[in-house]
């Protein structure tokens, strides 16, 4: 663990995305089921990827899903966790969300990464190291986005990966 005296941390790129199941691709008026949110952050020497996913769907939602997907998406976290880990391992820093979006662009949609405003991160605790600062910030962003996008009658499952970036 590398310790730094961090006062502020500037994220060079902060990306976000949503994971959606579209119940009828052919009809824009059909229902969308919001499954999760993704946040990817690259800055300094750090790269972090986080996802908040619903653990289960309601019966009415499951009934609206095509039979092909019903079993796999009845527990979105169980299905998507492996994909999340593969993206983390396979894609370059800053390209994990788009790695997923390039694969999921039809019924199951991962929106292409949208760059959000430049983030200036101020650690709550001046004694935090860089990794803690980044992870805490990703958790915070996931929390904000999940509250806006997901049905949070049950808390989502959250995973955050973080590492020293392979890029400078």
């Amino acid at each position: 663990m590398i310790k730094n005296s961090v006062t502020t941390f500037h994220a060079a790129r902060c990306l976000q995305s949503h994971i959606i199941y579209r119940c009828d691709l052919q009809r824009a008026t059909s229902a969308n089921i919001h499954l999760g949110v993704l946040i990817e952050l690259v800055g300094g020497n750090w790269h972090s990827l986080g996802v908040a996913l619903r653990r289960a769907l309601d019966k009415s939602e499951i009934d609206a899903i095509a039979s092909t997907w019903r079993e796999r998406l009845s527990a979105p976290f169980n299905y998507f966790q492996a994909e999340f880990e593969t993206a983390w391992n396979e894609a370059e820093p800053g390209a994990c969300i788009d790695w997923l979006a390039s694969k999921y662009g039809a019924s199951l949609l991962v929106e292409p990464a949208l760059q959000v405003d430049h983030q200036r991160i101020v650690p709550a605790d001046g004694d935090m190291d860089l990794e803690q600062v980044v992870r805490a910030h990703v958790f915070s962003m996931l929390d904000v986005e999940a509250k806006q996008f997901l049905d949070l009658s049950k808390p989502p499952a959250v995973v955050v990966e973080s590492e020293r970036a392979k890029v400078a």
Partner: protein
Amino acid sequence: MSAKQDDVSVTPAPECKMSGVSGLQYFDADVLALREIWSRCAVANPYAWERDGPNGVTDSAPFDMKDKQSGLRGKAKPGFVKPDVSRAAHEKIASDLAALLDLPVPPVTLFKITGELPPDPQSKAAGDPFVSISAWAFPSCDEWRVHASVITEEEKASAIIPLSAVWVFDCWISAEDRSYTKHILVAPSGKPPLKIACVDYAFSLSRSWSSGGPCGASNWEMPFEVAKRDASSVKFVADKISGISNSAIEEIVKRVEPGWLLEERRALILKNLPERRDRIHEIVGIPRP
């Protein structure tokens, strides 16, 4: 942003002399009805297409479009001006030619977006008003690789005939970047036949022919189960392609207006499609009838 297309006349397509062949496509009746309309004109109307969110990460920067009146949803490209390839025109021409052969290629219409265009959210490049819109073939479908673990052996076997047919078509139009994992949408049900839709023909036709790339048989990366192509399907489609008239080809290519297709590329397409049609048996390696 929305726009209504009401100033482009519908030009009837040449009469299709080929009867539909059971087993080459399994589109639902409403998609076939849409194909019947869209494949007979360059710009289908009336539609009030409205831009929706980005969809997919490719160099075409595709995005969703929805029709405010009917609720129909389609996938549009390109998302920004990329003059290197006539993506929209290629998608349209490929779809219309495939319709003549009753192949599993979704219907495509052209559309000119009016009003201010947003730049591509990723590249920031300026938007292109001249787009193609591809209909979704099935209410629920995804790339082959997404469903690979649930497609049954029987479903895979059922795909051999239609994919063999599409391979011949792809050879004709020099669709060179085909990967079954990405360019075949599937809607598996657990029982054959497997519903498939072949998509993304941006890199075909004049793109292949102007780049000096290989223009022989199309270099498909096929599912291993389909690698042994069905000989009767290959012959059937090769024979059908060889029977498509010059006038049918010209009608489809010439009705695409210059905003979507540069004249030198149109000339290349008009030259190569008949030439390759006449050599299609040789290109796919079977005797001429």
